[in-house]
Each structure stands twice: as structure tokens, then as C-alpha cells.
């Protein structure tokens, strides 16, 4: 072999090493993001490992996190060990591939027989692990079940283990979302008084997205010009159409706006993975209710997902303590849609329902905060009769004209913040 060839081979190997090392660095960054290493034992994960052992009939179950040079156990059921060296064969190998990693008889399996848990006094013989894969595709560690006897595992048991691993990941994602929301809210609060404007901007999209098939208008009015409003709206393009939300926090001023900001950004985080309105509200409620503020607050939200179809769009809507949106039909009648659901962030374990309504081309969906009812229908009014009368003759006039007419009806003397979204199906 010539010296030049050796040099080329080494260079190629070095490049391969580099790309897997970069991948590993990114994976470790993802591990750090969840801030889970060396945290104390925790009920949620303890329950999952206990459940895994019970359902699969194995004495040992572990939630492992693969760190740079060790495998740390977030939860360890049936064994007192808290971490082991990062040796190939078990968790360290399981995270380098997709899907379950099964070793039925470790002492005779070439992948594992040299691993010290297998060769050493622990005498591991059976291992089944499922990677904990984050929403952006990084394997943080595994949920695994272990036995000191060799054994088989059925396809159904593998599926159970995979479902439990998904629960572990869901829990990690929810905690991350909650922490980010709280960090943001804390940052917002520190600057509260003189950053009302900045805060206001964080509650509203900078501009409405242009999405084919829809025409949009949005308006926002603050009752007290010196204060930030507690209402918000948001519009996000989805793979099949558009998701729309309007919301309001109880109370007024910067504290209400802080709660609104936490809700809006948590919802956005949830929305990066989940387009279903009722599921999104359920998750949001769990997160907010689990981390109550002092004094306690709730938010109300109407959340809709519009999916384009040949007739117009299917509107799937879920309400959390929020007034029902209105649909102005092309022919000039206005109807309220949705079923009342409980307010968000107060009680854990609350269920949210959703309804699906067919919207046709030429229909206009109007989503609003209760300030619009208050200002157009009367002080303390929760009935939308007058608002519907106002909207009927505006059918088909286009979102901007409808928004202008609503603005005129709201006027200048407001007792509550007003926010609304108008969406026409083209």
C-alpha cells in the first residue's frame, strides 16, 4: 500500500467520525435541553417504570438517559443502581437505531456478551428497550425492561413498552414547554410596566399569514391605553389549512397579559406537534393547571382548525370557557358554533370536546373575545343576539369590511379589551 493511499483512507475515516460525532453532539444538546440529568426521583416516571414491570412481568424496569460517558437512570424500578458506564450492547446501542432493541439471551448474543452487566455479577440475561425519541428525532435514552433470566417477548408486549416510552417522552415535552412558558412569563413580568407595547406585540402575530383559500382580517383594541391588553389571537398555517385561536386571561393589566403570553406560547409549542384543537386544549390545561400562579388565574380560548375540502373547509372547534364563534353564511344568516367547554388552567383532568362544522366557500368565520359582546351587545352581556344582527347584512362583504363595521360598532369607549379574527373562505 502506498503512503498516499493510507493518508486518503485515514482522511475518509476521520470525516465519517466527524459526522457521527456531530450527530452525537446534537443529541447531547437535546439531552441538556430537557434538563433532566441528575434530577431527583419523580412520581410520573416512577409510575411508568412500575407499570412497565407489572405489564411485562419483568423484575426490573428503567428510564435511562444516555449522557456523554454514562447512562443515568431517571427512574429505576427493581434495582438500586443509579447510573452505569456507557458500554455498547444495551441502552447505548438501543439509541443508535430506531425501534425496539431486544436481547432475549444476552449471554449468548454477540451484541451483548461482553457488556459488564451481562458478563459481570449482575448477570443480565434479558433486555428490551425502546428509544425515547424527541419530537425533533433525537434519542435521549430508553425505557427498558430487564431480567436476570433469559426470556421471550411478544409483539404485544413490545407495543406496550413502546406506548409507555411515548408517555415518558410526552411527559418530558410537556415539562419543557411549561418551563419555557414560565421562563418567558418571568422575563415578561420583570419588565412589565414599561414594556406594555413589547408585551402586546408578543401576544399577537406580527402579520397574518397568507394562506391559499382564505382571506383574513384581525383587530385588537385595548380598553385602557396605558395598559397592556390581556386578549390574544393567533393564526398558524397547518399542512391542510389554517389553525386559529382567540383567547383572554381573567383579570386585567400586565399580570393577565403574562398569563395570556404563557398560554399563547405554550399553545404554539403544543401546536408544533398536535393540530387537534381538543387535544391541544387538554394539554394546555394540564400544563397551566399543574403550574398555578399566585394569585391563580385562568384563560379562556376558542381554538379552531380549518381543513380545506372541495366545498370549502371543515372547521373543527374546541372551546375552553370562551364564547362561541359565529359563522356568517354566504346567504346572510349568522349562527354560533361549538359546545361550551370549561375554562383553562384552573383544574387538572378536565376534558375538552370538539365539534366539526362544514364551512362553504363564501362563509365567514368570526372569532372574538368577550369584549366584543360587552361592547356591541351591552354591559355584562354574554348573549350574541345583537352581534348576529349586526353581522347578517355583512355576509360576503369580505373580512376587512366586516372588521371595519365591527370596529365602528365597538366605538372608542370600551370597558374591556376587544380582539377578533375574521376569516373568509374563498
Amino acid at each position, binding site marked *: 500500500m502506498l503512503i498516499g493511499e493510507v493518508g486518503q483512507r485515514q482522511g475518509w475515516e476521520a470525516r465519517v467520525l466527524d459526522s457521527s460525532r456531530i450527530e452525537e453532539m446534537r443529541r447531547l444538546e437535546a439531552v441538556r435541553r430537557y434538563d433532566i440529568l441528575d434530577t431527583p426521583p419523580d412520581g410520573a416516571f416512577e409510575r411508568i417504570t412500575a407499570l412497565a414491570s407489572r405489564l411485562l412481568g419483568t423484575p426490573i424496569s428503567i428510564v435511562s438517559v444516555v449522557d456523554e460517558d454514562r447512562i443515568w437512570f431517571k427512574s429505576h424500578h427493581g434495582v438500586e443502581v443509579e447510573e452505569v458506564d456507557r458500554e455498547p450492547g444495551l441502552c447505548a446501542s438501543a439509541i443508535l437505531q430506531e425501534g425496539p432493541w431486544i436481547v432475549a439471551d444476552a449471554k449468548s448474543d454477540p451484541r451483548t456478551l461482553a457488556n459488564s452487566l451481562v458478563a459481570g455479577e449482575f448477570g443480565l440475561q434479558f433486555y428490551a428497550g425502546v428509544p425515547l425519541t424527541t419530537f425533533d428525532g433525537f434519542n435521549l435514552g430508553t425505557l427498558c425492561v430487564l431480567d436476570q433470566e433469559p426470556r421471550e417477548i411478544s409483539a404485544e408486549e413490545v407495543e406496550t413498552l413502546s406506548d409507555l416510552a411515548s408517555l415518558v417522552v410526552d411527559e418530558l415535552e410537556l415539562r419543557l414547554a411549561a418551563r419555557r412558558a414560565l421562563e418567558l412569563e418571568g422575563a415578561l413580568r420583570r419588565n412589565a410596566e414599561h414594556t406594555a407595547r413589547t408585551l402586546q406585540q408578543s401576544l399577537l402575530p406580527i402579520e397574518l399569514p397568507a394562506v391559499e383559500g382564505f382571506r383574513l382580517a384581525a383587530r385588537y383594541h385595548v*380598553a*385602557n391605553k396605558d395598559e397592556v391588553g390581556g386578549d390574544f389571537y393567533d393564526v398558524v398555517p397547518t399542512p391542510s389549512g389554517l389553525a386559529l385561536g382567540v383567547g*383572554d*386571561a*381573567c*383579570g*386585567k393589566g400586565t399580570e393577565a397579559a403574562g398569563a395570556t403570553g404563557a398560554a399563547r406560547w405554550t399553545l404554539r409549542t403544543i401546536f408544533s406537534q398536535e393540530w387537534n384543537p381538543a387535544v391541544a386544549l387538554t394539554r394546555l390545561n394540564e400544563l397551566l393547571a399543574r403550574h398555578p400562579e399566585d*394569585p*391563580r*388565574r*385562568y384563560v*379562556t380560548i376558542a381554538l379552531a382548525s380549518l381543513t380545506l375540502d372541495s366545498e370549502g373547509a371543515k372547521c373543527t372547534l374546541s*372551546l*375552553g*370557557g*370562551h*364564547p362561541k364563534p359565529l359563522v356568517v353564511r354566504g346567504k346572510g344568516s349568522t349562527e354560533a358554533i361549538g359546545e*361550551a*367547554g*370549561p*375554562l383553562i388552567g*384552573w*383544574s387538572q383532568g378536565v376534558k375538552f370536546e370538539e365539534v366539526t362544522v362544514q364551512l362553504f366557500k363564501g362563509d365567514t368565520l368570526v372569532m372574538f373575545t*368577550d369584549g366584543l359582546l360587552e361592547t356591541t351587545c351591552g*354591559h*355584562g*352581556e*354574554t*348573549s350574541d343576539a345583537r352581534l348576529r344582527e349586526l353581522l347578517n347584512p355583512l355576509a360576503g362583504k369580505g373580512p376587512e369590511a366586516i372588521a371595519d363595521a365591527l370596529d365602528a360598532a365597538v366605538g372608542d*369607549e*370600551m*370597558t*374591556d379589551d376587544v380582539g377578533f379574527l375574521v376569516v373568509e373562505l374563498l
Partner: protein
Amino acid sequence: MRRDTVVTIDAHREGDALWIRIVGELDVSTEPELIQAGEGVENEGYSKVVLDIREVAFMDSSGLRAALWLKDKVEGHGMKYSLVVSDGPVKRLLDVAGVASWFTYE
């Protein structure tokens, strides 16, 4: 613009129950009065707290928050909590907020 609202809160014992009767508007400016009426309620030996809001002409989200706060506090100390409401804006607010079924009623 913010309205100046007026509220009267009367709290008195009836048997082993505390009746809190509110007349007027329960909103962001009057909510603290209900909170104040509920402070220390767990130390008075009541077995039940009744919030009478039949004569509340207007209640906003802050008012509802205070009513929920009191509910959690009272029930958290093992006492019963119930509302007295009449048809009207307050009842509609409880329906829109999806919490009507969270309460028991006198």
C-alpha cells in the same frame, strides 16, 4: 375607560353555614372585597359556605376567578361550598365559562 363599580358584601352565620351575599357588580375592582370576606373562613368552625350572587347584576372574569378561589379554599378545608344564582347574565357567564357543573347550588 374603567367603570367605578359598587358592591355590597354581607357575610353572616346561619346555623353552621356562612352566607356571603353580594349585591352589585363583581368585577376586577370589587373582586378584592370578596377575597377579603373569604380570608380566614376556614378558622371559624363553619361546615358550609354559601355564596349568594342572585343580586349580582354583572360579573366578569375576575369575579368568577374570586368565586373559584373561594370554592377551592373552602373545599380544600373539607367544607361544603354552594352558590345561589338566578337566571341572567351571571348564570350565562357560568355556562359560557363551562363551569356551571363545577358548583353545587342551593
